[in-house]
């Protein structure tokens, strides 16, 4: 189908209506789902991520592409259930107890969603018990913790301890982030990874699930 290049362009440009329209057409014409996703949609997301890393695109462009991608993915969802397309994974994300910072975490959530992950965003000020129960309930592969202050980041340790106590620490990868966090801190508290921005978070999530 020749219009698929248009799908790539639509996602790259963050044009959601066009992305949806082209995807509908592709479905009608019975184009292989895997081809649509791998060769056009994901490629566009990779390219926008690449531009972001090189200072040629900024967060708004990332968000618009992610939104277009999500719109198109929603149409493909019903077909994905019975296909051999590997799922990206399920992510539970939240900001730790005491901390009300939202925006950084939501950016990470939007980018993961735009990259095909199923994301359960449980909000801000989340106690460890809620993280544990959400991971269990949604059978999450990845738990993302966010904190923006030095006074709240230590709570991430409590969350990890709670997962250990619940006996599910080894069932889920833990990614952490937020302004005061570093990879040293991540190693120190026994998290599986840290990234400094939402774009890099996607690569990290993929890498953690591949390992």
């Amino acid at each position: 189908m020749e219009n698929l290049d248009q799908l790539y362009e639509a996602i790259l440009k963050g044009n959601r209506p066009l992305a949806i329209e082209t995807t509908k057409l592709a479905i009608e014409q019975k184009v292989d789902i895997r081809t649509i996703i791998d060769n056009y949609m994901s490629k566009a997301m990779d390219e926008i991520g690449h531009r972001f890393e090189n200072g040629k695109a900024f967060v708004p462009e990332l968000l618009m592409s992610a939104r277009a991608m999500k719109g198109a993915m929603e149409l493909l969802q019903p077909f994905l259930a019975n296909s051999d397309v590997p799922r990206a994974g399920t992510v539970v994300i939240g900001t730790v107890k005491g901390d009300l910072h939202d925006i950084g975490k939501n950016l990470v959530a939007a980018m993961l969603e735009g990259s095909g992950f199923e994301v359960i965003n449980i909000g801000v000020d989340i106690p460890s018990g809620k993280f544990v129960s959400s991971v269990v309930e949604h059978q999450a592969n990845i738990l993302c913790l966010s904190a923006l202050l030095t006074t709240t980041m230590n709570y991430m340790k409590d969350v990890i301890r709670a997962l250990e106590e619940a006996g599910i620490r080894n069932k889920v990868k833990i990614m952490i982030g937020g302004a005061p966090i570093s990879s040293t801190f991540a190693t120190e508290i026994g998290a599986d990874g840290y990234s400094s921005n939402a774009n890099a978070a996607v690569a990290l999530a993929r890498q953690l699930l591949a390992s």
Partner: protein
Amino acid sequence: MNSIPVAYSEVEVLPEEILKDIGYGNTAPESDVLDVINNIMELLRRKVKPRYFFAVLEGYFEGATISIGGQLLETGAVITRLLERSTSFAVFAATAGHEFEQILPPNKTSDDMLTAYLLDIAGTLLVEKVGDYMEKQLEALLPEMPHTNRFSPGYCGWHLTEQRKIFDLLGQNPCGIGLSDVCLMTPIKSISGIIGIGSNVQTGQYACCYCEMETCYKRKK
């Protein structure tokens, strides 16, 4: 309540400031981005009620600490040095206001993220502008009297929990700002701190050359 309102027109956030903050230099954003920014401008003009408050108090240095109004502030080596020779201090809080929080998109799904993100940046710029405006009011109050930059707990080795002392000095809930047990201010778009005042203080200095916080956004400014 200790709170002084600021007319929004005095601290208005401009589209080009938002774009610059995001990083757009030579590249232009997609037109959708500009549309959202223009909507935000309108919303801010109609709704927000920024506020600030400061109290000018005598203070003196006790080693590395500063005694102000009965509170001993442990401002840390870097900030204490930059406040050197101050004889009094403006203890302050400023906020974009609760009304700002109310205009945030209610459920921040990824569909609203562009608006949420741009508003978040606007809120940050707004509260910093309220801080600048507040400094002008301080200058009007004490003409000819030099003052330092603003310094805040949580920066350059001045521990975040020291905010409690600032809030004690300002009276409960200055500008309607609440301080939680982990020293998070609500509304989120709020700042607190002190400004040194004295005929021989260092004006306009920031501590980047002494500070190790590589990721700090005030760096190089």
